[in-house]
């Protein structure tokens, strides 16, 4: 994972004298380049969304079993009349093609349908649950970036023993199941030492442990990528130049080399979004936090397909938005990618 990500990077900024890369970048970026790039990206983004919608719909059709029986669950006393009413209300009696076209038509109007189990509009459910997850994800990113930068800047290119310690904690944090980590943090910091509240989304105190649980494994990966990048950057000739100008070792790491190494992290953004969304499912369950993860888990385990499809659409949208932003960002960062 780590090695492929780093090799997939566009080469970092051409080693310019000092910090002179940015003015050059600004010079070559015309409105036309940007407009073309945006249009191209928007087209493919639409195709991806349509693909996601179709896949989600097809998956629903391929699942075995009568949808109504699944909605009602295995132990139910619902009468035949109730079953027929549910089938009728959900339009499950229509031919598949008609159902698909209805589904696409509603999507075009921004209507994600109604949850089978929660009996609420899916868009309202996602809207309500989005903020707590965004908060959690942002807090986790802060935790991850701070820890990764600290670890990388302090250990890159230093004594092997120090680096071994760093890669050890990175390995541990990446391999620890978030589920277990969450319970461990709760047991120590909430049940034994009453430092943080057990669960819920009330205030800052309740955000600390979930953000740590979600952020730690990410910090492990980011730390490794960052250190490799830093070590590569530290071997570049401009570092020698900077050193010759009398800059301190830490100054070079923090001000120059880190900037080059950080470009690698941009590529990881898509992966990061996926990890955070996936991790949120577990973290929100352990810490009993509201959010998209908790909603997804509930929807998947009760086969609440409209909600599952809504979450699929949301994640597709997030991924498309991030990868579009990243592609555009490369144009800003690396002038060599501008074809016009």
């Amino acid at each position, binding site marked *: 994972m780590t090695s492929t990500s780093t090799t997939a990077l566009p080469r970092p900024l051409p080693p310019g004298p000092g910090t002179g890369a940015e003015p050059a970048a600004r010079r070559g970026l015309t409105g036309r380049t940007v407009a073309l790039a945006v249009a191209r990206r928007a087209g493919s983004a639409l195709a991806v969304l349509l693909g996601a919608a179709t896949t989600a719909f097809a998956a629903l059709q391929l699942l075995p079993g*009568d949808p109504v*029986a699944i909605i009602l669950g295995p132990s139910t006393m619902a009468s035949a009349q109730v079953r027929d009413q549910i089938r009728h209300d959900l339009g499950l009696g229509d031919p598949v093609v008609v159902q698909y076209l209805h589904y696409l038509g509603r999507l075009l109007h921004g209507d994600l349908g109604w949850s089978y*189990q929660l*009996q609420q509009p899916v868009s309202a459910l996602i809207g309500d649950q989005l903020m707590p997850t965004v908060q959690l994800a942002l807090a986790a990113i802060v935790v991850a970036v701070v820890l990764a930068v600290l670890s990388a800047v302090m250990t890159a290119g230093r004594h092997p023993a120090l680096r071994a310690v760093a890669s050890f904690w990175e390995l541990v944090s990446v391999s620890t199941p978030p589920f277990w980590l969450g319970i461990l943090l*709760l047991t120590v910091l*909430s049940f034994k030492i009453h430092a943080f509240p057990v669960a819920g989304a009330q205030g800052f105190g309740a955000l600390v442990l979930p953000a740590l649980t979600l952020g730690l494994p990410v910090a492990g990966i980011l730390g490794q990528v960052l250190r490799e990048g830093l070590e590569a950057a530290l071997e570049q000739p401009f570092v020698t130049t900077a050193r010759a100008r009398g800059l301190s070792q830490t100054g070079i790491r923090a001000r120059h080399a880190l900037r080059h190494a950080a470009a690698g992290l941009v590529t990881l953004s898509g992966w990061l979004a996926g990890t955070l969304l996936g991790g949120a499912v577990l973290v*929100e369950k352990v810490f009993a936090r*509201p959010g998209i993860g908790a909603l997804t888990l509930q929807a998947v385990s009760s086969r609440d397909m409209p909600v599952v499809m809504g979450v699929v659409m949301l994640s597709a949208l997030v991924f498309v938005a991030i990868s579009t932003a990243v592609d555009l960002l490369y144009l800003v960062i690396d002038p060599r990618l501008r074809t016009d």
Partner: protein
Amino acid sequence: MRLARPVRLALVATATVATLALTACGSGSSSGGGAAAGAPKAGGTVTYALDVEPTCFDLQVNPQGITGDIERGVVDSLVTIDAKGAFHPWLATSWKVAPDLKSYTFTLRDGVKFTDGTPFDAAAVKANFDRVADPKTKSQYAATLLGPYSGTEVIDPHTVKVSFSKPFSPFLQGASTPNLGFYSPKSLTRGPDALCAGGSSIVGTGPYVFTGYTKGQSVTLTKNPAYNWAPQSASHTGAAYLDKVVFRFLTEDPVRTGAVTSGQVDIATSISPSDIKTVQADKNLTIRKVEDAGGTYAIYINTVRGATADVRVRKAIQLGTDIDQIVKTVYFGQYQRSWSPLTPSTPSYDKSLEGSLKYDPAQANKLLDEAGWTGRDAQGYRTKDGKRLTVDWPWNPPHTREQRAVVAQAIQADLKKVGIDISHPALDIGAFVALAGTGQYDLYDFSWTRFDPDILRGFFNSASTPATGGQNAANLKDPRVDEWTDAGAATLDTAKRAELYAKVQRQVTLTDAAVLPIYVPTKLVAVSSHVAGLAVDPNGKPLLYDTYRS
């Protein structure tokens, strides 16, 4: 008639009485008011950790028991039921049952108001029952409590007559549950999504008002200061003591246990039997065992398919399983094994069945020999005409709780010893319901909570097969069982019902061998010593009306 509380939390403080202002309510027999030391105080909040979050808060639609647990304090019912199964007035001051059990006429209490100001009257009863019975409501549970409902007639504002197309004795028990409690007729017009979403759309007449819901987190109930119509079984009158009750959804077992042992919640339900030692070691906590009424956790043996169509094979399965040992080991001695398809707290439970199904592998082997399963294959399983004695028991992991998968493994191991091969494939819910709906299984397991022996009609009457949406998982067709369960539904005479249902329990367990009872579903509730007066009604619902902080 003044009644003792059906069940009461014994909050007996330990020796350090000095630190405790209150040791009242220790016994289960006080009638009304906090006896002796320390009168109940008004005020404060109790936080109650639950293991499940409801998908929908509409009691008339949602079948989950947890919805009723939360809203028992929000809605009131027509009657209350005591531990013996006798009915007492609540929102109905009296009632008359037609001799044919086809109609019930209730006189309603005067001066009762919903928390939105609407008076509770006969029209409100009609609006609620009509909505439950309307197929458009898609009621998955409440409608079954109304059974063969044919309509409600408003005789005058305080008199209402509920009618059925067939004799229907289970109605009064259904009327005592929160699922047939009353929402304000005004709130019923807000649409199903508003009620399902909970919060202020849920308006009842109860001692608490449903004031807030944060999905994935908590429900808040606040005191209804105008409340003045508590049932006689309560120990005080007027408004509830607590200002607020907060239900927290902590779905992970270790988190719930940690939250209650660290004092972050006051009550935590469904403590895992493996955590019980930790909780018992805590001097600030008491463990309360609540045994569910209704259908015990049992395995229903298909009487019409494959090898289990032979009653000798079914009996061999019953005798070849060491249930005592399995239940003791898996549940750390916390759960009782069961002997009947009904749990001991259910009315008409047949106590004489206890001790009847003893582990007897020798007898099981003898029965299997008699049934012709005399060959053995390379793995040691029995065969007949070259075919192995295989018994199919499909299951679905997400709908399997309480270590039931471990119980199944133990049963599998026991039955292997007598040569029965239990095939126990874990299936996706879609594949599982497809098999279940068409009867393609030999064993099928479930438990069912309801304080009425009429559930036996659902479990064993031949009119209730899975194909028609019924619960007769054993596909039993026994004319005597049909006759007795139908007769039980047509009488309210307690002695007569006890006799009929005892016959049913004995017949299906010992003669038909259609069921293998395993254990009594039990909730282990941890309660802080700062909380007193918490009770649980015979339907298994927590009663927070008399609860206070001490």
